[in-house]
């Protein structure tokens, strides 16, 4: 994350200066900061709502049933997570919410799933294989009906807006499957996580952060 943060900001300032857009770039700091707080605050209500709903669904056993149905798939994708972990149910719900285009519900449920995955994580600062897999599934944006895009198409007078559903679904499926495949592939080549306790205190602070450092070969443990 260190490199991404540095890259985004420093490259923007340099490119902005080169393009004569430095004032815009500096203004973007303010608007971006404001926007982040707006996004977070706009999430509070809807997040509370869906976390409440999810708790009911969990207590009533609904999530357990859904988790059981998709077990054959999740067992393969998240082989490091115990089969009875609540994370599996949350992952299933988050995926369903995304598929139906319920973005508002998908975010809180997805965060809940990440929290459950964090409980199984041996190094709380770095992303476990299961987290990378779950994130990959999310970033591929699998969705059955792209409702917002269709709404815009209708707005500009597109004759048959539903004709883009099939190609979009095909493309999103390809991206989704390739994300899963690449996640599994990189998991094999990337150095496995190691518990910070095993590395010793000094190693944690010296171990640095960011993608590159976490790729250091600590060897051994899986």
């Amino acid at each position, binding site marked *: 994350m260190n490199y991404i943060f540095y890259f985004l900001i420093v490259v923007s300032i340099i490119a902005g200066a080169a393009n004569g857009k430095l004032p815009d770039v500096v203004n973007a*700091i303010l608007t971006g*900061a404001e926007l982040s707080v707006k996004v977070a605050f706009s999430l509070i209500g809807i997040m509370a709502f869906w976390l*409440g709903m999810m708790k009911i669904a969990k207590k009533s056993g609904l999530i357990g049933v859904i988790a059981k149905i998709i077990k054959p798939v999740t067992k393969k994708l998240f082989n490091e997570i115990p089969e009875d972990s609540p994370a599996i149910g949350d992952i299933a719900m988050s995926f369903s919410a995304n598929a139906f285009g319920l973005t508002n519900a998908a975010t809180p449920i997805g965060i809940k799933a990440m929290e459950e995955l964090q409980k199984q994580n041996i190094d709380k600062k*770095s992303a476990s294989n299961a987290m990378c897999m779950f*994130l990959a599934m999310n970033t591929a944006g699998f969705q059955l009906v792209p409702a917002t895009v269709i709404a815009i198409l209708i707005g500009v007078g597109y004759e048959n807006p539903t004709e883009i559903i099939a190609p*979009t679904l095909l493309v999103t499926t390809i991206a989704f499957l390739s994300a899963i495949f690449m996640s599994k592939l990189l998991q094999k080549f990337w150095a496995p996580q190691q518990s910070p306790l095993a590395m010793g205190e000094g190693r944690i602070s010296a171990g640095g952060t960011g993608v590159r450092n976490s790729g250091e070969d600590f060897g051994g443990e899986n």
Partner: protein
Amino acid sequence: MFHQLMNLISLWALPGIIILILTIGLVRKIPLYEVFTDGAKEGFKVAVNIIPYLVAIIVGISMFRASGIIESIGVVCAPLLEHFKVSADVLPIMIVRSLSGSAALGVFSDIANNSGADAYTTKLAAVMVGSSETTFYVLAVYFGAIGISKLRYALIVGLLADFVGIIAAIAVVKWMFG
């Protein structure tokens, strides 16, 4: 028929899930109201916790977009795209869709308005926007909420999947509408 079915699904997905959750809860004799409010309490905590991570990533992306660098990349890549008979108008979408969902929708609206509703470019842009999720936002929110700072290969996979999605969109739209 298909159109109507799709509309029906979009309309009823959300209310349907809510009815299902509440009804099963009631049948199983769950104290609905108490359990709901208990779960909802976490909403505030989570939303406030992600603010620092959102500020870092959204400020970075806002600066990146304001710097004009996306347009510069467009100028460089335009000849390459022309080779594949892809209009340079779609290029901002390819770059922006991993960074900001609202920006991608904005660019898409512009294209739909300017290129004409049924133009090939509009179709391509529609498929590209519709098949993507904002990788950087998802990364910041999900990992921010649980305090992950070492991404390992998560971002690489996300961006590679975005890239595959772009190529697939070009190929599929060409095949179906070309």
